[in-house]
């Protein structure tokens, strides 16, 4: 069971305060109508499901109700950090994790 430091409350909190939000940074297509069914289906359903370091969203359900991102290892449960969406995005891009 994890301890996550909410980047907004800036405190260590127990996992039970949070809800898991799935893979981070899945951007909604800007013009869905221009996508074919396969591409739309990919956005809707296909997931990286990474084994290893995983960028994922968590929401601070009982606290500030903010969504933020966490970098967590899905095989060891090691947790590298938690960031606001904006800050996390910078690191995510720097890592090329989106590629």
């Amino acid at each position, binding site marked *: 069971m994890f301890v996550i430091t909410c980047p907004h409350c800036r405190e260590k909190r127990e996992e039970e305060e949070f809800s898991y939000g799935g893979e981070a940074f899945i951007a909604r297509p800007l013009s869905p109508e221009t996508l074919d069914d396969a591409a739309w289906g990919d956005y809707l*359903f296909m*997931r990286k499901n990474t084994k290893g370091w995983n960028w*994922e969203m968590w929401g601070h359900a009982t606290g500030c109700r903010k969504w933020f991102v966490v970098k967590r290892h*899905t095989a060891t449960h090691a947790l590298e950090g938690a960031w606001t969406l904006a800050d996390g995005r910078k690191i995510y891009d720097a890592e090329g994790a989106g590629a």
Partner: protein
Amino acid sequence: MQKDYSVWSLFKQGLRHNEGWDPAWKSPEPKPSYNVIIVGAGGHGLATAYYLAKEHNVRGIAVIEKGYLGGGNTARNTTIVRSNYLWDESAMLYEHSLKLWEGLTEDLNYNVMFSQRGVFNLGHTLQDMRDIERRVNANNLNGIDAMVLDGAEVKRRIPLIDASKSTRFPILGASFQPRAGVARHDAVAWGFARAASKYGVDIIENCEVSSMDIAGGRIKGLQTSRGYIGADQVGCVAAGHSSVLAKMAGIRLPLESHPLQAFVSESLKPCLDTVVMSNAVHGYLSQSDKGELVIGAGIDHFNSYAQRGSPHVIEHTAAAIIELFPMFSRVRMNRQWGGIVDTAPDACPIISKTTVKGLYFNCGWGTGGFKATPGSGNVFAHTIANDEPHPLNRAFDLNRFSTGHLIDEHGAAGVAH
């Protein structure tokens, strides 16, 4: 040729201090290449190999496994077998599987201890009861045994259950499938392994796939921890690790791998003669032949490959069991564990060809794979042998995620299998 198992062989071997038994299956070195390689020696993978050899006369089959055979979800589930699903597509697939279960011990000459003690799916709200009615009527029209029972009848058949109205989730009734039940999970893997081995299938343990050799849109072979192995066809049946394999082939799957936990009590004298499942309170349990209460917990919501979940999930499940059976609060949990389940958006499996010729995937069974073991292997074998889906798994291909033809079984699936 391997000796059959029977009372007489037990007697004969007993007299010889049990020194004459053959290996249950052979463990050969991998050959340079095979016609078909099945990746993943869990129940589904071994069943696939067995039926490929038995029903489709395919030879040159290997099943490769990164750990030991039957060590994944086959060995970690709560062994419930049933077919009372809502939609035609899944109901037919699971019923096909249930029929195979009914003859499996004799077919494999290995007692998988399939125990048809019936499964109750409890209803706690008016909507639960509507859904139960809908599902049971659908089951009946599909020729699947199922019935709706009221609260009093549930209490009559499960004496220890708390049927009082004052509970947070009063029991309004249940659906009941008499032919459903439980089986001995390890025996299923070992039985299929032994039977497949009899047909000359090579079972290669401690052999992990590191990459796929794909040329001209066709699978050529696999790079493994035990060297390169060539193959004309490759069927991946790797449950929680399916996404990892798919990535090697440049394929994306609509899967998320989650921990699913379970636990058993200490061994008790018989106190529960059937299987009880409740989605509303998130608990399901049965009693093993050894006397342990076998209890399935909910899935952890985060992705994981660690075969480890969070304790509060187990705690909530224990509370759910006590809500149904208050006296069990004095019973003790002996052991808990976790598996990795690959869940699909519509809680239905994927048994499908892929964009890579000769590469097939059988995954997405989520929390409910065990019950499908023989049926899954059976139709997947057909799919591989004919490079064409079996009528029963046509609906379970990957296209449904672009056409939108999902088969939403969340109601029937819930957490509970």
